[in-house]
């Protein structure tokens, strides 16, 4: 085979991205991972420190029981098997943000392993401590070329859970989507603030590509610093495109760590502690193994709330919601809670309609706010939806009623009455339709000639006359009746 056909084959080949995610979650325990310092939320630098988290000579770590509890909860929520006995290791490297010269982490025996969240398998869940924060003075903003660097040890020693997925993700969009599911799951557990911008949820991605349909894995690169869902998607897409171009040109991907620059969207090799480093892991002799007792496991198990993925499933199967609506309600637990209260208030089967009103009109009205914080009561929403079903209020008028309920509260029936928003019907509506058809004689002719679109003119006239209180379907019926 000559060179040209090879090049053509490369150019035409379809590639499939293979993506694994590594997520670091800062736990919202009261104190740090291995000492008694309270966690820091923007305090003055180096005010949340002690001899232990400063790595002073002679100090020893002591494992935070609450962090172990949270770690077990996360492991269980992700369907992992907690290890009967997991151990800590020292991960050795020199860096000023690491006061001991090693990070206490877990290595070959993590806290929990082999789980699944949604359609992505979880490889492992382990506990470790966060590094301190470096601030570099000077133009570069990085340690190389900095005029001076200062270390703030407030963050040093914050408990982290690292979650590593199997390489099951096949697109940047899927990665972002799954990370959202993970975030809402962790939020539901109440174990972390899970804020990507503030760094309490951090995501690295291992990205490789391979010819579609092949089973072997290509050489991967590690992407760091994608501190929002959008950046994760952009970073992974950029990297997949870069690797594809490399391979199509006959080149090869080199294993390296890449830093995502959110301003430019560019990926640049990270000149860092990562490169060419041998971490010389060995078991941490200062700590005893974590051997969860049956009591600890039971405590973690019973602390698990219903998780978003389970709730979505239940809303779908028990309440008949369509998948998208069920997920939206499950992932935003405030909406989900409001929905379930509203649905429970009604004897009739309005669940689907109530759900649609929530994800449609209500969200349009209140955005990200919690509906429980508005004047709207779940029972009022249920009543309103019931009135629409019974035809006592038209859909368009009901939207106005909802706006009033959100802002002022009250009883929907009374609002309809007071503002004269009740559906026009009976003799009144018949008279209005007669009048409209008389006024729109041209349109009526066209309808008779088979032009259905002309109905709109008559309908418009009816709506104007009733100020939107007429039910569209009923008007249609009355028009047909009179043709």
């Amino acid at each position, binding site marked *: 085979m000559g060179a040209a056909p090879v090049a053509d084959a490369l150019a035409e080949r379809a590639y499939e991205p293979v993506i694994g995610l590594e997520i670091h979650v800062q736990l919202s325990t009261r104190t740090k991972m291995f000492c008694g310092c309270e966690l820091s939320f923007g305090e003055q630098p180096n005010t949340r420190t002690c001899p232990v988290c400063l790595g*002073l000579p002679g100090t020893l770590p002591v494992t935070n029981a609450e962090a172990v509890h949270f770690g077990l909860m996360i492991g269980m929520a992700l369907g992992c098997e907690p290890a009967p006995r997991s151990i800590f290791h020292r991960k050795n490297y020199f860096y000023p943000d690491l006061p001991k010269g090693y990070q206490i982490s877990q290595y070959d025996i993590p806290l929990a392993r082999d789980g699944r969240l949604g359609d992505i398998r979880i490889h492992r869940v382990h506990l470790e401590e966060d590094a301190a924060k470096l601030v570099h003075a000077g133009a570069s903003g990085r340690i190389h070329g900095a005029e001076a660097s200062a270390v703030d040890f407030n963050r040093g020693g914050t408990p982290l859970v690292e979650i590593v997925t199997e390489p099951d993700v096949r697109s940047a969009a899927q990665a972002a989507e799954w990370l959202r599911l993970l975030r809402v799951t962790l939020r539901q557990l109440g174990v972390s603030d899970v804020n990507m911008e503030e760094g309490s949820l951090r995501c690295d991605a291992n990205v490789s590509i391979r010819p579609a349909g092949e089973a072997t894995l290509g050489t991967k690169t590690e992407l760091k610093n994608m501190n929002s869902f959008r950046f994760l998607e952009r970073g992974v897409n950029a990297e997949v495109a870069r690797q594809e171009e490399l391979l199509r040109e006959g080149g090869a991907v080199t294993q390296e760590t890449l830093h995502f620059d959110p301003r430019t969207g560019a990926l640049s090799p990270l000149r860092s502690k990562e490169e060419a480093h041998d971490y010389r892991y060995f078991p941490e002799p200062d*700590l005893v193994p974590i051997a969860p007792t049956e009591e600890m496991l039971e405590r973690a198990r019973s602390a698990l709330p219903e998780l978003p993925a389970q709730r979505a499933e239940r809303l779908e199967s028990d309440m008949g919601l369509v998948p998208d609506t069920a997920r939206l309600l499950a992932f935003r637990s405030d909406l989900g809670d409001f929905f379930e209260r509203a649905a429970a208030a009604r004897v009739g089967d309005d669940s689907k309609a109530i759900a649609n009103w929530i994800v449609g009109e209500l969200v349009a009205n209140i955005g990200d706010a919690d509906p429980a914080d508005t004047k709207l009561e779940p029972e009022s929403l249920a009543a309103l939806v019931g009135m629409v079903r019974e035809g006592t209020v038209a859909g368009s008028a009901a939207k106005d009623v909802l706006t009033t309920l959100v802002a002022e509260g009250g009883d929907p029936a009374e609002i309809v009455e007071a503002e004269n928003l009740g559906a026009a019907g009976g003799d009144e509506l018949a008279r209005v339709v007669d009048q409209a058809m008389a006024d729109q004689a041209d349109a009526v002719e066209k309808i008779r000639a088979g032009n259905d679109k002309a109905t709109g003119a008559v309908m418009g006239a009816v709506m104007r006359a009733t100020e939107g209180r007429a039910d569209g379907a009923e008007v249609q019926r009355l028009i047909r009746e009179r043709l």
Partner: protein
Amino acid sequence: MTGDLLDLTAAQAGQRVRAGELSASDLFEAWRERAATDSLNAYRWVADAPPPEIAAGAPLGGVPVAIKDLFCTEGVPSAAGSRILEGYLPPYTATAVEQLAQAGAPMLGKTNMDEFAMGSSNENSGFGPVMNPWDESRVPGGSSGGSAAAVAAGLAPWAIGTDTGGSIRQPAALCGIVGLKPTYGSISRYGMIAFASSLDQAGPLTRDVTDCALLFRHMVGRDPLDSTSTGLPEEVRLPDQERLDGLRFGVPPELTRGGVDPGVAAVFEQSLRHIEELGGTLEEVSLPHSDQGISAYYVIAPAEASANLARFDGVRYGLRAEAGDLASMYEDTREHGFGDEVKRRIMLGTYALSSGYYDAYYGRAQRVRTKIAEDFRSAFERVDLIVTPTSPTVAFGLGERTDDPLAMYLSDFCTVPMPLAGIPAISIPGGLSDELPVGIQLAGPAFSENRILEAAYALEQAIGFDGSGARG
């Protein structure tokens, strides 16, 4: 009067204070003055003010204690014998030191030591070697050489040190005093500047076994700041048995034959006769893997040390070399701050943990360690205690082994297996060889300190060692 006072054992002095015959502050003052006359380079720092008031009923009666420089003491220099920590003042005090102060043993001073406890002669101190009070041209042993020399020379009533591979027992032997390495975990390591975390253990260095038991009693305890600490399952008793009836003593050929100097062997043989005279029985027991103890030890201890010493990077405390960039600052700081032996062990340990070598070195050493622990377990199914010489030789000359690290490492071959197994062992003076003390080591199963102390006490009475030759 002062001379008499300082001739009392610590237990005797404490008793007098508690009986109201002696004031704690006079006692402290007498010892402070005595410590200040140190010409052995045993002390790095001596208290310059009287201690806070001693509670009337304090069990240790105000008898001051010399503290190895490895223990962090708030506001008092704590350099672990290293230039890299010169001038470092810790903001907190080690648990063991705190407990002793609470029990009525205030700190008398900080004693010299091999840098980061790495050494068997005290010649690795960043602040000059300590001299042996029996013969000032000889080493006191190490690494707790300052503590051992101070007690032997009568510069301190008692002292504490740390033992990783023999660092309490070997200097105790070479200085003719008593030194106990307790069961791993019985005393908190919090505040001990770490050398090898899975081996390091604090313990007393004292003039006699009674003092040893008394000081040890107030050092033990489970510490919430040290998750590897366990305390002792039973109270430490003050020994009073003068017989060894019914006790079975194991003599391991691996630790008592090859390499032991004839003079040391003779004193050891004499001790075995004493054991028999006191009603104990002797039996040969094999510790087949103990000859690999030194090899395993010199992989595991440096490996842990290579990580423990990474924090001395010039960023937060201690020495910082001025250099252009971060990497040079690290390199220059550590180049100037650490001595040769420390650098040697950091390199050994770093190598042993390196990717590709981990299993061959660290992994294998851990397996040997397990074998050594199993050897002891099966030996203790047959005997109650194991008896060996503490050191294969008496105190050697200053400078004699400094150019031969391997010969220096072999000084520890009788003492290294016990910390690898986590078990307790004591060294007591067995007699003299060429006017120099010889130590006898008794080892027992984990948490058998009371048994060890009882036997050591009985043997001590029979031996009748006179240590006054070293006290000026």
